[in-house]
């Protein structure tokens, strides 16, 4: 019945006005024509390379190569993601049964390379690299990886994200709360806190290289002055245990103003009446924050956590300018590795495979965001 109705109506339209149909044709044509430059460009420079990243990851494509490109299946991903534990027991003298000690009196262990280089007894370890080592009682537990540097980059990226997201998010909120006042001069402070956001990350990285310098660095000098000379200068970027923290501090300094502004926009959507009501009820500042401010900021909080996470996953410029992944790969990251392999070593296929892993992480976060916001919409 309804189908009949519709077709009848269409027919009526047809007979009703011939020019209506031609107008609709011109409307469609205009629509397509005006969108086509953008669609073409996005297809060629966004969608095609995105699909190619997935395709290339399964080949041996290089930027310039005399050999034809071949399909290699999962080989790139196997190399990236293979992780195997290897337990090393102390070397024991076969005659006496006593552990062999080195000159310093430490227990000795067999060299990892005796397992990973052409050892027919351990084909599963062949070609693997030493990633990290844990102590396991007297034994050593060595984690071997197909690409140890990649594993380090994956964990460094996750570590950076796990530290930066809560820290930067909460500092941004703190700044927003301090700034969210109708007092004189607040705009000036807002502008100052926001200023590093418009400064290029390259410029910021070089400035902070100077600040973190082990000899004449401003940070060492400031800490020395504050502690009246009791502070031992640290080579912040040259030390594997401080380098990543130095990058974290600088990254937060640069970006926190951005998140302050977004928190501020969120704060200003909360109706003032709610605060007045809370004040009448006798709620103190903390109670007001917990019961009025924070519930009103839920959407903003989700958005901010997601944007910081995405940006943190993409950590690259600071690393490329300040540390180039060092010292001892302590600051290497996923994107830095993708660029190292895909561009500097011209191994497009392997770089693409790293990009695919990177995108998988981004996708997981995007899906979590959708899930969280949908939950709350109901």
């Amino acid at each position, binding site marked *: 019945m309804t189908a009949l109705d519709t077709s009848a109506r269409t027919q009526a339209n047809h007979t009703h006005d011939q020019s209506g149909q031609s107008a609709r044709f011109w*409307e*469609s044509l*205009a*629509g*397509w024509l*005006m*969108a086509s430059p953008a*669609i073409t460009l996005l297809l*060629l*420079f966004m969608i095609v*390379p*995105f699909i*190619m*990243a997935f395709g*290339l990851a399964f080949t041996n494509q290089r*930027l310039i190569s005399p050999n034809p490109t071949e399909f290699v299946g999962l080989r790139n991903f196997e190399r990236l993601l293979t992780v195997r534990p290897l337990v090393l027991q102390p070397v024991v003298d076969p005659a006496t049964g006593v552990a062999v000690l080195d000159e310093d009196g430490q227990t000795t262990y067999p060299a990892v390379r005796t397992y990973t280089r052409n050892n027919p007894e351990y084909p599963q370890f062949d070609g693997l690299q030493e990633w990290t080592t844990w102590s396991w009682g007297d034994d050593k537990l060595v984690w071997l990886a197909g690409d140890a540097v990649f594993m380090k980059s994956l964990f460094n990226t996750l570590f950076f994200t796990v530290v930066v997201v809560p820290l930067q998010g909460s500092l941004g909120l703190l*700044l927003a709360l*301090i700034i969210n006042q109708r*007092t004189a001069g607040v705009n000036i402070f807002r*502008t*100052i*806190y926001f*200023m*590093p956001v*418009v400064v*290029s*990350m*390259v*410029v*910021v990285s070089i*400035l*902070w290289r*100077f*600040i973190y310098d082990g000899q*004449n*660095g*401003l940070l060492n*000098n400031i800490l020395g002055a504050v502690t009246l000379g009791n502070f031992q200068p640290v080579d912040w970027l040259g030390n594997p245990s401080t380098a990543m923290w130095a990058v974290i501090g600088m990254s937060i*300094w640069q970006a926190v*103003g*951005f998140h302050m*502004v*977004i928190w501020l*926009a969120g704060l200003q959507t909360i109706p003032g009446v709610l605060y007045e009501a809370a004040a009448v009820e006798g709620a103190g500042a903390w109670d007001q924050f917990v019961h009025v401010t924070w519930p009103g900021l839920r959407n903003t909080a989700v*958005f901010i956590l997601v*944007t910081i996470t995405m940006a943190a996953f993409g950590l690259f410029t600071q690393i*490329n300018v300040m540390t180039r992944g060092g010292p001892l790969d302590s600051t290497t990251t996923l*994107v830095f590795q*993708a*660029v190292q392999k895909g*561009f500097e070593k011209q191994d*497009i296929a392997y770089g*693409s495979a790293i*990009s*695919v892993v*990177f*995108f998988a992480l*981004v*996708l997981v976060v*995007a899906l979590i965001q959708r899930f969280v916001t949908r939950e709350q919409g109901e």
Partner: protein
Amino acid sequence: MNTTRILHRNQTATTVVRYGLMSLLALIFLFPIVFMVISSLKPDLQIMQDSSSFRAFLPVGDISFDNYAETFVRAPTGRFIFNSILTTALTVVLGLLVNSMAGFSLAIPRWRGRGLVLTLIIATLIVPFETIAIPLLLIVSRLPTIGLDGITQGWLNTYHVQVIPFVANAFSIFLFVQFFKSLPQELVEAARIDGASWFQIFANVMVPLSGPVFATVTILTFLPMWNAYLWPIMVVQIEEFRPVMVGLQYFFQLNVAWGEVMAYLTIITLPVLVMFLALQRAFIESIASTGIKG
């Protein structure tokens, strides 16, 4: 009476503490930038000596613009600035044209597939540039260039490789769609009745009303283009086409002269900072608008 006085005194104390805190924070955000500008005016030796005292932030001692003159000697700084201005301006202008047209097309005229195209464009927003950079490098290295010397293969080491991939921008299109949809649709109806073509409606009716969104998209295109780094280091290997951020490498070859580095950093940062301070409301609102999606 007594309680109000205590309250009053309390308030004054809170105000003092708040301003003290805000000023301290301001120092933390300002000191590297102040240090950069001040050091750019000093000879290297003095930068090192001053770095252990408060003098690092004061324009005292042997102050001159020598470092600035020297940056143009050590590297083709003028060329780098020209390259950055050119690629940024081209991307902004072409981007405004292409994306506003696409935004109009996806917001006003009705055509089959419109919804699907818009959904796809918005879906690409979650793809970070870092994911597509490597395959994109392969694509541009194979694309043909039509130049004065006929057709050559590859876009590497050109201006257009720094511009064309960034002209169409999904987020800009999204902003234009939102804005055009918010305008009163009676304007479109009226223009249709007057017999205006769709392009005329776009150019003569919509665009003149769209100052704010054009300003936002300009700022959001200008900043990443001026600050471009990852893409230029991949596709531009020769000095002729290098933008300012990549040009910085010249100051880290052989002996690093920190005074010159600081002068160069100041030269490439100050235009952005001045623009930011002049248009701070527009800047902050534009950048915050990236946070109010959907």
